[in-house]
């Protein structure tokens, strides 16, 4: 391969990797919710959109850097999540109906309301948070004078990636080292057993949905510096979250990380080598393929090999 080809490949991989961390964060909230509550939330992306608007207004009105908005937006999203769970989702689960898929349809309704309200309040104009370092990048050639190829790491992309990793690590710590976190995992792995052990399942559900919403809210704050914002953008994030969740396996945080990176690199590669027009299809194709071939997620493959046949 020639130097320019290597450059393009490496750049593509780097971009994919950095964005992958963010994708993982978007998906982690959903994998938790699906794993613990077996709830399919088609409004996941809309929650991220709401958080992005929060970050946007904090930046525009108060000059607050989006990365710092995480500390405000995430708790707000947590509360919203708990509210949704308590007032909408729990009632739906109790209802007796012919169609089994009520809960999914409910979240579709929620998504519609959220995105339409955002449009009514904020118009469909594209918004962004032009931070001072938005276009800054770290160049390989600045640090390695004789480098044969040029690589650049966009600063906002890198910072987002680092934050995403930090948050994911924090989550992992919460889930494995704290009692509450362990209860969450227990409820996700074996609902009945958790009940017997005295886990307050309703509280777990609210906590999980709140946590999932907070996580995707944080992802929103990390995303807005590197992209732009408009009311109907939720859908694509929901899809990303789903693909990440399915590839990684329901309830698996490690899986979400792997899934996020795989998806992002796949998209990055196809965008570079196949062109942008077909880009949206990638995700769907990966999604359906994962549903069919990897229903238990990638982590289950690893588990199988460890236990032997």
């Amino acid at each position, binding site marked *: 391969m020639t130097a320019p080809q290597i450059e393009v490949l490496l750049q593509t991989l780097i971009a994919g990797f950095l964005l992958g961390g963010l994708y993982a964060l978007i998906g982690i909230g959903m994998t938790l919710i699906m794993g613990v509550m077996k709830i*399919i939330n088609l409004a996941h992306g809309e929650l991220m959109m709401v958080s992005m608007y929060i970050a946007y207004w904090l930046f525009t009105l108060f000059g607050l850097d989006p990365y710092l908005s995480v500390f405000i937006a995430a708790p707000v999203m947590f509360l919203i999540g708990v509210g949704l769970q308590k007032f*909408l989702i729990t*009632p*739906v689960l109790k*209802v*007796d*109906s*012919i*169609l*089994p*898929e*009520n809960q*999914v*349809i*409910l979240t*579709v*309704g*929620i*998504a*519609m*309301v*959220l*995105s*339409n*309200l955002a*449009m*009514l309040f904020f118009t469909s104009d594209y918004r962004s948070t032009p931070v001072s370092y938005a276009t800054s990048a770290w160049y390989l050639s600045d640090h390695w004078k004789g480098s044969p190829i040029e690589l650049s790491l966009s600063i906002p992309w890198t910072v987002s990636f680092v934050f995403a990793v930090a948050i994911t690590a924090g989550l992992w710590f919460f889930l494995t080292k704290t009692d509450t976190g362990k209860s969450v995992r227990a409820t996700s792995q074996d609902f009945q057993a958790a009940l017997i052990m005295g886990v307050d399942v309703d509280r777990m559900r609210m906590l999980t949905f709140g946590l999932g919403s907070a996580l995707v809210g944080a992802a929103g704050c990390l995303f807005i510096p590197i992209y732009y914002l408009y009311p109907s953008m939720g*859908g694509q994030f929901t*899809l990303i979250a*789903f693909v990440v969740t399915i590839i990684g396996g329901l309830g698996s945080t490690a899986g979400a990380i792997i899934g996020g990176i795989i998806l992002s690199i796949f998209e990055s590669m196809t965008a570079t080598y196949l062109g942008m*027009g*077909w880009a*949206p*299809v990638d995700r*769907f*194709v990966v*999604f*359906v393929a994962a*549903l*069919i071939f990897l*229903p238990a997620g990638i982590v289950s493959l690893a588990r199988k090999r460890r236990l032997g046949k």
Partner: protein
Amino acid sequence: MKRYLPFVILALLAVVPLVGLNSYLMHILILFVMWSVIGMSWNLLGGYCGQVSFGHAAFFGVGAYTAGIFYAKTGLSAWWGLPLSIVAVALFALVIGFIVLRLRGPYFALATLAMGEVLRVTAENLTNLTGGDVGIMIRERTWVEKIWYYYIILAVAAITFYLVKIVVQSRLGYYFVAIREDQDAAESLGINTTLYKTIALSLSAVITGLAGAFYTNYMGYIDPKVVFALHDISIITIMVVMVGGVATFWGPVIGSIIMILMSEVIRSIPMLGSAHQTFFGMLLIIIIIFLPNGIAGDFKKLKRLIRTGRTT
């Protein structure tokens, strides 16, 4: 008395335009009947067989484009699209069914959602075939008066209504419901669930495809964003059936009237113009929580609600 209700309604619908309605009202009537057709077909797959499709726009769009592409490539009347769409959509449904029917419940729903979107993007990209974003325009309008279009779609609706009735009361219907209630038990009782789910999907798809082909001829213009629309077609379809009543004969018809009326009322209030998604979303949430089986399905609950303000 009840046995004659369908005939009475059909007769009423047949004579209504003869009193002389303006173009706008005819348009509303046509939309109402068309959405009844789409709703009834979705109901067969989703309400009776329990396979909830979030991507019926795919079938609508394939039907629409069959008519459109046929016209664009041959110059012959797009009305040929109607019989052609039956074949095209049936084949398409078989392929799709082979891929997604193995998925259960919500995963099936998500896969169909993906299917609708994939088709939309595909149509946008295959510009040589579909004209891409530019769409396909039919230059020669068959009739100026809307009434003939109305009678065509009304005929389709009547046939669909009776087809659904016959199917539901036959072996197929029993098998569909058995699959919906417990697929594993159904399989254990000798029902080839894959086969019957495929039949349900194909029937449902073909009827929706017919509506799509009709749409092409009636509107005279189609493009991917319109006919493969997730919100404006797939989700509206689900709402029509859910609001009206899943797994009932009249549910889709009732739901269609309500959705169309709601749509027009919201559109006519200047302030609320673009808020119809919010209202639809809220309606969906309310129906799902309080009247999950729709107006026809939860009729007793509805009466109680109106009388006492409570649902239990």
